[in-house]
């Protein structure tokens, strides 16, 4: 149980290959922090530097109050679940889980107690004598979790632990991991490229792109107030509609769009953003109206998504599933002005 802080951390492999740039995050004790970003964004490297598997080029990483830059991985007292699970193939499930405790020179009886307890929590009681080879993917994943749980570590690191599971199991495990976090009361740092996992599991999310931290915040905050264009496009599915506009007299204009902005902005060129759920079949008096040429209709039962063009720009709308509409139709849709974002076309930062 410990807080973790990254203080101006840099990871540079060669002078022109910097994978993590000036990374600053404070992770509170017992927090569930998710590092999310596209592959190659540096999130795994950031985690591996904390684990002690990569050296830190510049800056400091602290666990609790202690700077760990020069502490060997084995002395950091953190547990890590690997994407590949990294189970020891020549050891039984029991020995896999007992291994970190044996490294601590713990008494046999105590090891036995802890392994039995963890296997009970994870439903592995009947598999303790098996080798990892004889387990299913989901069971292996549990053993990897168990090996981390038994240690009662200061910090629990998870590097894309769900990406080798099938969709159904992934959903279940997502829920179980959150429960586990509540029960263990330990700091969790979770790396994923999947924004759904990030949104559903994290107390807070840190979004990275190209080695640079983009935004840190609670899932709802990031969803409602993306700090820049990258975050706006990355979080949310289907993703946010983004339309290049020019701003004049407090209005954002583009072919097919003339929208009154809630407050005046200084930039002349911008990118207007709105999520599909802000564009619906409810035309409100205080909203804007858009004419959409519908090209594809997706009925999901609970939702209906319309894909089409407004003034030549591709736009997605989320409408009432009972709305009757077919490809080729011209649809009159209402845009809720409370749901619009504007980004500077050059700096890509949020302006509203």
């Amino acid at each position: 149980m410990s807080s973790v802080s990254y203080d101006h951390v840099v990871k540079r492999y060669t002078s022109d290959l910097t994978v993590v740039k000036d990374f600053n995050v404070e992770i509170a004790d017992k927090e569930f922090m998710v590092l999310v970003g596209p592959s190659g964004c540096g999130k795994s490297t950031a985690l591996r530097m904390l684990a002690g598997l990569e050296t830190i080029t510049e800056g400091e990483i602290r666990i609790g109050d202690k700077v760990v830059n020069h502490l060997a991985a084995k002395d950091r007292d953190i547990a890590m679940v690997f994407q590949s699970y990294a189970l020891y193939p020549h050891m039984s499930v029991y020995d896999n889980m007992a291994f970190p405790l044996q490294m601590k020179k713990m008494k046999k009886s105590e090891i036995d107690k802890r392994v039995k307890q963890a296997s009970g929590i994870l439903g592995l009681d009947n598999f303790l004598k098996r080798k990892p080879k004889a387990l299913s993917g989901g069971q292996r994943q549990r053993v990897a979790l168990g090996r981390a749980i038994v240690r009662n570590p200061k910090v629990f690191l998870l590097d894309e632990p769900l990406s080798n599971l099938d969709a159904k199991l992934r959903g279940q495990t997502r829920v179980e991991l959150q429960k586990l976090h509540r029960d263990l009361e330990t700091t969790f740092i979770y790396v994923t490229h999947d924004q759904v996992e990030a949104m559903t599991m994290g107390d807070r999310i840190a979004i990275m792109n190209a080695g640079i931290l983009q935004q840190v915040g609670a899932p709802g905050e990031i969803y409602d107030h993306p700090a820049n264009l990258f975050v706006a496009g990355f979080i949310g599915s289907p993703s946010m509609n983004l339309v290049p506009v020019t701003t004049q007299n407090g209005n954002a204009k583009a072919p097919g769009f003339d929208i009154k902005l809630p407050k005046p902005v200084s930039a002349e060129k911008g990118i207007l953003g709105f999520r599909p759920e802000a564009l619906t079949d409810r035309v409100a008096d205080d909203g804007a109206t858009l004419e959409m040429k519908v090209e594809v209709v997706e009925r999901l039962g609970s939702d209906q998504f319309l894909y089409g063009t407004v003034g030549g720009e591709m736009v997605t709308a989320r409408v009432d599933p009972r709305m009757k509409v077919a490809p080729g139709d011209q649809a009159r849709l209402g845009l809720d002005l409370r749901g619009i974002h504007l980004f500077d076309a050059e700096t890509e930062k949020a302006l509203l």
Partner: protein
Amino acid sequence: MDLSLLLTDVPTLLFVIVAVPAVLGAYIVGGEFLVRRLPDRARGSVRPWIWVVPALVFVTAFLVAPAVGTVFTSFQSHEGGWIGLTNYQRQLTDFPTGGAWIAIRNNLYWLVLYTLFVLFFGLLLAVLFDRVPYESVVKSLIFMPMAISAVALGVIWKFMFWYQPADAPQTGTLNAIVVNVFHQAPKTWLTDVSVNNFALIAAAIWGITGFSMVILSAALKGIPADLLEAARVDGAGEITIFRRVIFPLMMPTVVVVGTTLVIFALKAFDIVYVMTAGNFGTDVLANRMYKLLYQADNPGGASAVAIILLIAVIPVLIFNLRQFRAVEARR
């Protein structure tokens, strides 16, 4: 190159170039032709035999038949009469210095020292050079002796162990060091019975360590990196990781290399033949067999030694094959 020699026996040349491929081709085409005419069910069980029989014929003619012949010879006198176990009795008489006993003792030295040291050095080199940038250079250098024929290797080491009387300049590398660095009297490495066996074994170890290193290094590289990282995060130091994770995962390969080396040790011949010819108490079974057959004109005794050697190798061979299959199954 003068190829006219080939033309001195034109019928044989024609036989090799034309008749052998023609017969094999006819066998395959004819065999397949017959198989096609068989009922569907028989076809599946007959066809493999069509392809396997030529190999079986060759193995029988050149391996099984001579082996059986050797067994018979080992029960016969020089004149061809049956004499039961007399040949074996002569080889196993007067323990510990008579018959083949010295050779058997030396083969045991080889078996233990050669196998253990080659495994130890191979493992050590594979692990030590695994993470250095100049790994491939070092590995090439260490592997190089493998490319030297055993005879050349024997000659090289004979020079290394060369002896000159104390007052003459020492041309042998080892004695030069002994005299000039340690200021001791030069040693007769290859004739002094207290060291000569170990000198021969050392030369053989130098020649084969590259083989063991390369195979063990491949096994080491086959261990996924994240297993080692997991162990590090789990709190294990590098030596513990080697003992608890790396070595157990390399074990099947260590066993395969080890049993192969045991067979090499039992078959040891060339280095002994070149360096001491088996004199001064350095004889080994393979060399004794050679001497009995070609120098003593005693085919029965040579065959008996060969069979003793064969019996010693068989268990190792079976173990090796089983282990090899286990490694394959693990992939």
